[in-house]
């Protein structure tokens, strides 16, 4: 189909145009790490009796004695070969570390986004159908609470209620409790892997672990999604084509869903993409509170210990995810809106 072809071409062009930005991110992060205070060699050498010589040796091993441009060149060379360096904290390749942790973050973020969308869109639509009503104000209040309560507070609150008071949730430590045997890793997404393995007890255990952190994250992003849904739904309901739909006597449901909502959903897609990228990288607090073995807490630990390679790798990963999410949004938009694929 021509629309699909046009969308693919547009996506490819968009991807190509974001490569320089990725490169820029790479260099900027590298330089930023060098500027930040803290010497990794001192940090990792710091046994109580480590002398100057030992530090110098470590520095030499890490290549930090070379001039910065040369370091940068070596780094770029390694990245070009797919090697993001070695983490001094874990002693593993950064690529391997990230690959292990990314699915955990992705699973959490996807679930959170799903919960947020499932709640935010109906709320936004309800608010738009009766602007100024009690429902509208209620939604506004709920959204305001969601944004103004920090995630670590709402996370702890949820743990307090569901784990401590009611005891319905398992203890908030990681993706599964230690007694559950993990399914063979196909996708890295536990819910999917458990389902593929047919282990529904395991699935349920993983689900129970996931639901609280996912809700915590979702609460925080419901507000922008619901607000944009409400605003674009209002615009859509007041538009000429909805009036046309009413003038030919279409049913209420058809007018709201097929005519108004499908048009109103377009800006929501864009915002959802932005929200997703932000959640993936920025929700380090949720990962910390729930001991979630994700990439954000990994990067934070690395940053605190001046471990250059993981931080640089993390930033590069986030930038790539951002690019990919934007591409996906672009493609979705092209499918949802026939006007885009022209020109």
């Amino acid at each position: 189909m021509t629309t699909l072809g046009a969308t693919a071409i547009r996506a490819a062009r968009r991807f190509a145009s974001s490569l320089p930005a990725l490169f820029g991110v790479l260099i900027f992060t590298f330089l930023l790490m060098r500027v930040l205070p803290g010497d990794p060699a001192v940090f990792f050498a710091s046994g109580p009796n480590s002398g100057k010589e030992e530090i110098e040796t470590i520095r030499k091993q890490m290549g930090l004695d070379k001039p910065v441009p040369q370091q940068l060149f070596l780094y770029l060379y390694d990245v070009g070969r797919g090697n993001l360096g070695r983490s001094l904290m874990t002693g593993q390749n950064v690529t391997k570390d990230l690959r292990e942790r990314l699915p955990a973050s992705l699973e959490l973020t996807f679930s959170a986004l799903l919960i947020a969308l499932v709640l935010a869109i109906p709320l936004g639509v309800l608010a738009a159908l009766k602007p100024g009503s009690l429902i509208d104000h209620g939604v506004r209040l709920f959204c305001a609470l969601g944004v103004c309560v920090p995630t670590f507070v709402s996370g702890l609150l949820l743990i307090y209620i569901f784990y401590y008071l009611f005891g319905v949730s398992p203890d908030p430590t990681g993706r599964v409790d230690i007694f559950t045997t993990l399914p063979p890793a196909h996708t890295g997404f536990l819910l999917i892997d458990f389902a593929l393995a047919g282990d529904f007890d395991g699935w349920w255990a993983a689900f129970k672990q996931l639901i609280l952190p996912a809700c915590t994250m979702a609460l925080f992003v419901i507000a922008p999604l619901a607000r944009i849904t409400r605003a674009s739904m209002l615009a859509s309901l007041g538009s000429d084509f909805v009036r046309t739909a009413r003038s030919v006597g279409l049913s209420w449901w058809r007018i709201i869903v097929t005519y108004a909502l499908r048009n109103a959903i377009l800006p929501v897609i864009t915002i959802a993409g932005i929200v997703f990228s932000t959640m993936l990288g920025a929700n380090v607090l949720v990962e910390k509170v729930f001991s979630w073995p994700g990439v954000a807490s990994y990067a934070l630990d690395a940053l605190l210990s001046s471990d250059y390679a993981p931080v640089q790798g993390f930033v590069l990963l986030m930038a790539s995810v951002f690019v990919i999410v934007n591409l996906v949004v672009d493609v979705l938009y092209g499918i949802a809106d026939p006007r885009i694929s022209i020109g």
Partner: protein
Amino acid sequence: MTTPKPLLNIENLHVTFSTRRGPVEAVRGISLSLAEGETLGIVGESGSGKSVTGFAMTRLLDASGKISGGRINFRDRDITKMTSASLREMHGSAMAMIFQNPRGALNPIRAIGQQIADAILAHRKISASEARAQSLELLRAVKIRDPEKRMNAYPHELSGGMCQRVMIAMAISSNPALLIADEPTTGLDVTTQKVVMDLLASIAAERGMATILITHDLGLAARYCRRVVVMEQGRLVEEADALTLFRSPQHSYTKRLVAASPTATSRVEDLVSDDDKLLVPAIPLPPPPKPAHGTPPLLEVLNLVKRFEDGTVGVANFSMAIAPGESVGLVGESGSGKSTTSRMICRLLDQTEGTINFSGQSISHIPAREFHRAPQRREIQIVFQDPNDSLNPRFNAFDCIAHPLIRLLGMRNGAALKQRVAECAHRVGLPADLLERFPHQLSGGQKARIGIARAIACRPKLLVLDEPTAALDVSVQAVVLQLLDRLRREDNLAFLFVSHDLNVVRMMCQRTIVLRNGAIVEQGESHALFDNPQTDYTRELVDAVPHIEMIAAGKMAAGA
């Protein structure tokens, strides 16, 4: 015209809008009746409440509008008291509407065939494939070419006229007894307007539908409606059959409206009654100076070509000349290249090829983005089409007029600038106390005056007018046209007048150029050109203009 039982009977209808400044009554007690199969025109200017009346009849008013009094009986049922369920039942199957801005009235992300099928399925329990077959039939009925292909097209892929046909197809899909068309052809070309209106009229006649045509265009109402009512400020001021109304209007407002509508024979002086003329200060006109023999033309355009990036040709080999003080009209349908041409001449757009000489000097070698520094910038000024969007919303009237004086003449803030701005405002008949106001606090006519004052502030020699009155009501248009004509004579200004309204061009311009697909089809002295067109295309354009006089010999005689 006696009918036993009216289809629609409106008694003392009131519609009130709740606004931030309290309730505003848009319709103040109108009574109307309409027989089965009758055609009725509702004419009036913006704010007269004509569209609100239409929306009240179908109960499609915005949430802020409410029917605050009166009754609307449709086949002996009071619409004002209907439940939303029976209203939905009635919409489309008993009465349907056709809207202004057809492209906006269609769902932008749904294929048109599906939209028509939706309308059909709203009232009949048939399968999706049957509905699809019927929508295909309807597309055929509204004479859309390649209906099979168009079924899957989206509104943005169709022209405005096509979209309006789709809208008509949707409106007639369940055979309503009443069709309300709210400015159905505003924004369409005259030829498209004629095609769409003819189609609408023939479909309504064929299927015995009563039609209400809501329009600001007296000529259109005269051509297509048997009976016409005139609305002013929410009231019905006159009701008569079309011929009587336009031949011998009784109410003073109707008289003014009829006088202000440009016709094939009207002159600029006749458009405005004496009361309105007082708005513009009278200055005795000096006799127009005769250009000395052998002076170069003010503007000379040679072999102008514009090719766009995608390879389409916007303007092909366009040549013309304008003498000082001469007024030349540029007419053609949308897409004919008239706006592109005028933009190149006033150096807002770069040409691909060709030369433009102004007062004997070439200006075409100066790129459009550099032209604001050229000395000729102040000699060539532009009056834009949309008086709303062409004014900076953060500038008050004074700033708008002062802007070119500061930027082009290098004037500084001070007494001299103030005096100059006041003088410009005075010349365009803008009261001095309005200079403090911002665009949103002014009426359309006042904004148009600011646009003109801004254009004449630097005392240009050539004014390029891009549809300067297209967005204005006829009575305001009349005043603005008169103002422009007077300014031209006083300052010996030359006009390049771009318009789709042939009657306006005929009045305002000594010479007219007809464009089609970027090329000149015909040109010559305006009256001769319009009275005796030499090409089929010009004749088609001229014939498509609905004239009030034509009803005498034409349509009405045939219909009566």
